[in-house]
């Protein structure tokens, strides 16, 4: 068991390390590198590897709200509208069930 302050000091160091490491590594990649499109794919795959498993851990109704939220965002490209729909849906679920 550790004290909360140990976590609060460790996490910023970990996050800062990931940010610095990426910038340092970019010194070895040219701006017009032929591998640029692959580099852009990598963060998407890393993010999806966290999002997909966690999304599947929700209840079916929560997953349905999530799908609606993402579809609205995809179609409108408006994060505020989709957020209102998504959070409204989650709150509605809470009070209806």
């Amino acid at each position, binding site marked *: 068991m*550790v*004290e*909360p302050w*140990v*976590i*609060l000091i*460790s*996490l*910023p160091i*970990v*996050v*800062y390390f*990931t*940010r*610095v490491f*990426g*910038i*340092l*590594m*970019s010194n070895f*990649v*040219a701006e017009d590198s*032929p591998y640029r*499109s*692959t*580099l*852009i*794919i*990598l*963060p*998407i*795959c*890393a*993010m*999806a*590897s*966290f*999002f*997909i*498993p*966690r999304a599947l*851990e*929700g209840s079916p109704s929560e997953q349905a709200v*999530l799908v609606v*939220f993402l579809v609205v*965002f*995809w179609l409108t*490209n*408006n*994060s*505020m509208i*989709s*957020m209102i729909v*998504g*959070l409204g849906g*989650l*709150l509605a*679920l*809470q*009070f209806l069930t």
Partner: protein
Amino acid sequence: MNDFRRGAIDSLGLSATAAVFATIFGAAAVAKGLSFVEAMSLSAFVFAGSAQFTTLTMWGDTLPFATIVVSCFLITSRNIFMGLALGHAFRGQPVWRKYTSIIIFNDISYVLGIKNNQIKHKYAYISGISLTVYCFWVIGTFVGILIAESLQQSILDGLAYAGIMYLGLLTTLLIRADDGFKLPIILAAMVILVLYLAHADQFTIMIGGVTVGATSNLWLEFNQRKERQNG
């Protein structure tokens, strides 16, 4: 228009959305038993929404140090890839400025930075976005902590899934910035799904997804280049 100001203005909509999720984070943090200083420190110094929400799920009387730190590293390891793809924007800046400004480099800075290729001073543009998102995120958390007491537990329970929604929003933003769904992303998503259903651990899922996405994209690029040379 000054590129710094332009970045700040371009990111207003997404920053406001981030602020709402930060408010939910602040309220959820108080409900989980974090003090004002602990919740604010997470937002002000960690400043990584997805990692903060995940940390919150593990916060309790006994804190699993290794699990929290490793999870945080895995979730924020996308910063490494983002830095690789957009790091050229930081070139030519004084060292102190470069390494202090990346403290607040975030997903929204990356997405808008990648999307807006016509910007002349990309570093200023990214800094404008980063600072705006940071201010909104910290203020949002502060508001969340303040209103936490007045929120019913049922509302907080209902919004527990909002952290995953935020992850989904960021993932969709990244996909949109890369001209929509491409075959490598779909293949990576399928591999992630299969590994998850096979009960693989988080590290394996991430390595599997990233490897398949990168390999299939390289293969497609190679074939397209070959076709261009032949045709």
